[in-house]
């Protein structure tokens, strides 16, 4: 279980996240929906610990001062101060926005970097699972990741995150720039990941429609605050939300 309690993030004087509370239960799929600049990615950075890294780098560079408040609790333990790699070892793995693959490494290499800390048997087994999840990757294992299409790259990115043996997977805008048919393949993997591996998933997206059938509970973020939360049915029942995030009035 992952909990964000009263998380606040300031980029210099700009409030990026305002008192956000989010809970992701064991084996749940949680959606976080919001427009650009709503704070979705910042929330993912805060949950995965990448924000600490960004904070440090900005400080060294003399750039923006990032202030963090609130706490992140994972399985009953306060992990607010843990760095990104320590959180990943606890099973909290981020699949970042815009994929961030290693473009010059092959697909198989990208996946094996993800599985660096996994045992050989685990890595082998997860690799097979990823290939089963995304059969399109089977023929591409030797291709350089930078030359794949956007959809294939997204599949590799999710695969790489899975190789790190997560218990909690953070998917940041997995459908960014993908064609509807490819979107379908990618979101269909979410229930499979949950059901077959027992991994909880937090997924962010701007346009909620493709994702909403697969989430149990969702939060709507606007200007850094959660303005609404509820189960899938509750959100679908709200006409304003429907118009803004599901593309139907």
């Amino acid at each position, binding site marked *: 279980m992952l909990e964000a309690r*009263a998380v*606040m993030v*300031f980029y*210099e*004087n700009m409030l990026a996240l305002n*008192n956000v509370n989010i809970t992701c239960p064991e084996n749940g799929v949680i959606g976080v929906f919001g427009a650009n600049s709503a704070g979705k990615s910042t929330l993912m950075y805060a949950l995965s610990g990448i924000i600490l890294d960004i904070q440090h780098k900005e400080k*060294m*560079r*003399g*750039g923006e*001062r990032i*202030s963090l*408040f*609130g706490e992140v609790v994972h399985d009953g333990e306060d992990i607010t101060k843990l760095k990104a790699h320590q959180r990943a070892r606890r099973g909290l793995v981020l699949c970042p926005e815009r994929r961030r693959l290693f473009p010059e490494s092959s697909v198989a290499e990208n996946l094996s970097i993800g599985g660096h800390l996994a045992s050989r048997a685990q890595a082998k087994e997860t690799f097979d699972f990823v290939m089963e999840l995304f059969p399109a990757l089977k023929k591409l294992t030797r291709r350089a990741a930078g030359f794949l299409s956007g959809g294939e790259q997204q599949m590799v990115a999710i695969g790489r995150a899975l190789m790190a043996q997560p218990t909690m997977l953070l998917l940041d805008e997995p459908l960014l720039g993908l064609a509807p048919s490819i979107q379908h393949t990618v979101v269909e993997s979410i229930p499979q990941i949950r059901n077959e591996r027992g991994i909880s998933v937090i997924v962010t997206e701007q346009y909620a429609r493709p994702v909403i059938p697969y989430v149990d509970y969702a939060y709507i973020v606007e200007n850094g605050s959660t303005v609404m939360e509820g189960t899938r049915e509750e959100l679908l029942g709200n006409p304003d939300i429907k118009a803004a995030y599901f593309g139907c009035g």
Partner: protein
Amino acid sequence: MTTETTHKRRERIDRGIKVRSESLYALNSFEEIAYLLTPRVMLIAAFVLMPLILSPWPYWGRVGLSVCILAMLSISFDFLANYVGLVSLGGAFFYGVGGYMAAVLNTELGLPPILSIPVATLLGAAFCTLALLPCLPLRGIYFAIVTLMYPLLMTRIIEAFDILGGTEGFRGIDGFSGFFTEQYGLILAMFIALFGLRRFVNMDGGLVIRAVKDNDQSVRASGISVTWTKAKAVFLASLTGCFAGAYYIHMYSNVGISSFALDLSIMPIAATIIGGAGTLVGPVLGAAILVPLSEFLRDFGSLRIVVYALVLTGFVVFRSEGLMNYMTRKYQQVERWVKI
């Protein structure tokens, strides 16, 4: 939310006067004009007063000039690295080419310094730009390596073919007519380079150059030739570097292959890091710290380099933004604790 009141955050805000003086109306108020001019006047005053103060000690006068020489090389490096995106280790190349050009013009053609320096600057910059033209598509470390090779190449060519005076170099080059001519000529040139380039990077031409650094493909999509833009930028940077070389050889009346020494490529980087990369003024500040520091440390002999390296490492690790960025922030912004 009970926790809210317990949080405190350090806030940075622009000083009122900074915000006010950004607009055109700043010219209405003496206070705001003073705010804008103070840092600039302080810098100019420091360099204008320097020769007057140092005139009883010619040795330290030369140290002052070395500051200006290093400052010009560092401005050239900073401009190329942080505005054009070409990390150049070719400071020594610009410097040496300018120096040898001026020496040839002075000793062979008999041009006086007042002519040989500007002509050598222009011809040298043209030569450097042409020589670097094939390397312009390179980026990052590749460009750095290639530009590092150029001064080494020049040294070996001069040695092997015994041209341009061979290992001896040129001697008996005309000096300057007086202490103050020598001092103010260089200081003036340094300020022209500094303020000229600062102005340039904010003009249209400079905008294109900065865009090339960020994303050259998008620049091409706007119908602009990237190579031509880079060539212009390299020309500007080498003008500064060649002038420094040409001036220096007239100061010391000789030139040799030491004009292509590796130090001249490395020192500007150190000055830029200490002063603050991407500010153009920072390198001047860095040079004004590094050169006197290295003079003071002369007594320590070979330990000098240890102290030197420690200072540099300290800056890179603990203050990689550099002095100038730090000081600008303090001058323009205030910090205070706010409750959330």
